[in-house]
């Protein structure tokens, strides 16, 4: 009898739970469900401004096509589509695009956000605000600025990857290239002059017959107070990267007065030790750069095993590196864009002084003196002696 009672209550409990489960499952209607057949995967976005002052948004969509069994060349098929629409705000323009297609846009795989120069020079804050606020766009998306039209860049058919969005996201990950994700930009923007740097891309037409069009980072855009204020060449961007500890390695050639030959040199493992000093009202940055060098090529008459040659090469490299850094700083000081994050460097050591000049940091920044010392070591001269 007791056992029966016990079983009865158990069955009742279980049936009640089942009933609740069924009711709940009919209530919630699969809230966030996005079937993969119903989403349009956005691989890159372009944001620009047209001549009437309206915002023009371009998206690059992946077109899912089942690779048919008969034709064995899926790479021949155009696997992406580019759509453009305008609106008063970015979200309105995106919405206008979404209205035209049968599926819901999915931005979780938007790897590259390309910003037109016109938009960058006026409304950069709006773009950052939109990208951070919209939850589908990931903070790991890469930002780019372009002088060309965004649709043209997105329509570019690369010869190595599936689409231009993928090209860009892979390209910036390579050594030596400036890569700025949404997160990096927002972190860098915390300085009082709201300065940051974003790589600029362009399509380069082939210089020789038979060569393919390439998509390339040509220079870097400097921003201050939410506006693009200037550009910096790739070479000078190395200076910015070294001082921000983001430089890894590059190859360049050295010329010497005493010898007609050249030395192809690779610098790597570059480290910067930065010491801010405020002395008698003069703000100074002492940067001590160390690194290793490897000789890749030697067409001079000097033996690379010779200690004197090593000294010469080390000295020459040091001169070039410190020159690049100095020029790079001067360029950014000219447009008052603190892309070296000097404010935070000073703030760590002199917080009260920094807080005093926080309001007019844009005026203080150009007066900062940068002193560079270098210490490079030739660690390897190649196998051939």
């Amino acid at each position, binding site marked *: 009898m007791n056992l029966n009672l016990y079983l009865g209550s*158990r069955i009742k409990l279980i049936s009640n739970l089942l009933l609740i489960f069924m009711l709940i499952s009919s209530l919630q209607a699969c809230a966030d469900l996005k079937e*993969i057949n119903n989403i349009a995967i956005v691989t890159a976005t372009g944001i620009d401004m047209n001549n009437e002052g309206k915002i023009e948004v371009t998206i690059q969509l992946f077109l899912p096509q089942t690779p048919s069994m008969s034709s064995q060349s899926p790479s021949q098929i155009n696997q992406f589509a580019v759509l453009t629409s305008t609106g008063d705000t970015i979200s309105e323009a995106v919405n206008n695009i979404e209205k035209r297609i049968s599926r819901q846009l999915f931005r979780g795989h938007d790897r590259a956000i390309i910003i037109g120069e016109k938009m960058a020079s006026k409304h950069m804050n709006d773009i950052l605000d939109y990208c951070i606020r919209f939850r589908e766009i990931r903070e790991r998306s890469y930002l780019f600025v372009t002088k060309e039209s965004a649709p043209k860049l997105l329509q570019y058919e690369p010869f190595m990857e*599936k689409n231009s969005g993928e090209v860009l996201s892979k390209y910036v990950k390579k050594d030596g290239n400036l890569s700025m994700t949404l997160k990096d930009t927002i972190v860098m923007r915390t300085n009082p002059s709201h300065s940051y740097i974003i790589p600029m891309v362009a399509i380069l037409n082939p210089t020789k017959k038979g060569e393919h069009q390439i998509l390339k980072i040509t220079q870097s855009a400097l921003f201050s107070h939410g506006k693009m204020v200037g550009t910096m060449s790739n070479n000078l961007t190395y200076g910015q990267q070294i001082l921000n500890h983001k430089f890894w390695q590059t190859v360049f050639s050295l010329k010497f007065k005493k010898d007609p030959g050249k030395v192809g040199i690779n610098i790597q493992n570059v480290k910067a030790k930065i010491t801010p000093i405020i002395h008698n009202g003069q703000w100074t940055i002492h940067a001590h750069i160390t690194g290793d060098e490897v000789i890749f090529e030697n067409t001079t008459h000097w033996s690379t095993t010779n200690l004197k040659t090593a000294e010469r090469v080390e000295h020459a490299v040091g001169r070039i590196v410190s020159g690049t850094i100095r020029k790079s700083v001067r360029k950014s000081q000219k447009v008052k864009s603190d892309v070296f994050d000097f404010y935070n460097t000073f703030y760590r050591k002199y917080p009260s002084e920094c807080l005093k000049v926080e309001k007019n940091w844009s005026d203080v920044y150009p007066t900062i003196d940068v002193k560079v010392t270098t210490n490079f070591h030739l660690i390897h001269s190649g196998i051939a002696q």
Partner: protein
Amino acid sequence: MMNWLRKKKEKNHSKDKIYNDHKKVSDRLADSEHILRQAYSKSSDIVIKSFTFGKNMRTQALLIYLSGTVDVVQIDEHVLKSLHLLNDQENDLESIKNALTVPEIIEVNHFDRIYHEISNGHPVLFIDHLPLALSLGLSKWATRQVEDSSTETVIRGPKEGFVESLETNTSLIRKRIRTPRLKIEQIIVGKYSRTPVVISYIDGLCDPSLVEEIVHRIKKIAMDGIFESGMIQEQIQDAQWSPFPTIFSTERPDSFCGALIEGRAGILIDGSPFALILPSTFFMFFSSPEDYYSGFIIGTAIRLLRISFLFIALLGPSLYVAVTTFHQEMIPTTLLISIAQSHEQVPFPTVVEAILMEVTFEALREAGLRLPRQVGPAISIVGALVIGQAAIQASLVSPLMVIVVAITAIASFMIPHYDASNTVRLLRFPIILLTSMFGLLGIIFSVIAILIHLCSLRSFGVPYLEPLAPFKKAGSIDTLIRGPLWKMNIRPHFTGTLWNKKRSGK
């Protein structure tokens, strides 16, 4: 209606009377013969042999047995011939018992006991004037040879498995634990089947109250027949409403003896090669006897692999459903693109696809099990078509789904214990359903629910997740990992006050 029922009941009752279950054996042979002939009427396999013995053939006797269960040659040799050599005066119990050259002679005097002995294959000898019968241990049952266990296979390890005969099984245990401390207690279960069930434990290692509790629970079983240890397991285990088995069953004498030496108790029943071990904890179901034979580094690596695949077996399809229908941003872009491409032609939502494939696979597995052995290969051919290339070409499912189902299947085959593997197979489906509604949240809900449930389970007083939750140092290195044998020098403690803590040798 009630009257009719009552009548029927009475009729049944009166029918029982002819068996004279509680009657004692009288000293008149004719009475006994009458009762036996009545009881075994309409039984063609009963042999009732009346004969006289002694020099002048004065003493009457009766031998009764079931044909096919006794060794006829030995009856002839050791019973009939020996009795014929007796003098007429030697018809008292002592001299007859001495004359019989049979090692096992039991005196029985109640008829229910006599029926039991006859059913056990013991020929029963009745002698005139004697108010008792002699049961002779001359049974000879048809039994299977001791073979390699078919359900728990190992590469390295003993190749002996339990068989259906209880005597053989107990001998297999005695062969491994050669001490009188090994106890084998018998209980008869089943009103009609009268199945011998033995409880085996090591005196001094196993908690006496545990044995008491087991005996108590087995005695409470009210069933007409017990044919498999699974029927006992279902009735004596603690959490009868749980999908998780809380009693471990094994076909291997080595893992059975290993458990006895840890201080657990075992149950063996006649007619089933599956022995029960209790109390049993969660991690027993995910370890194989081979873990202990192949070195602790390999053993640990394989155990970790098994545990990680347990999660795949449980959550594989649900993770796929969650990630492809709720959290596409979690997949690498290239993979998402290929998933999107392969899914373009599929007509169903991913959930339907997943459930379809999983159910098909389970059906295939079940069909493969139930199929007569001769047609076995047919199912693998058809199966490969159903959940393979053909299904993809017909755009019924996406290739990735097939991979997911295949990995899940492999993972579920990796679970060494069949009952536990069934539990995981069963739990997979509600998790898929929950996931299809809540995404990863559904997975987390279900994992939490399962975990809470596991924490609430007990097996004969021992928490199911024991050495880890609640944490106990003894035995904790034999759970997710398999520690070196020389580190397992403390015997785990289960329940009660008896704890023979130190393992010998240390």
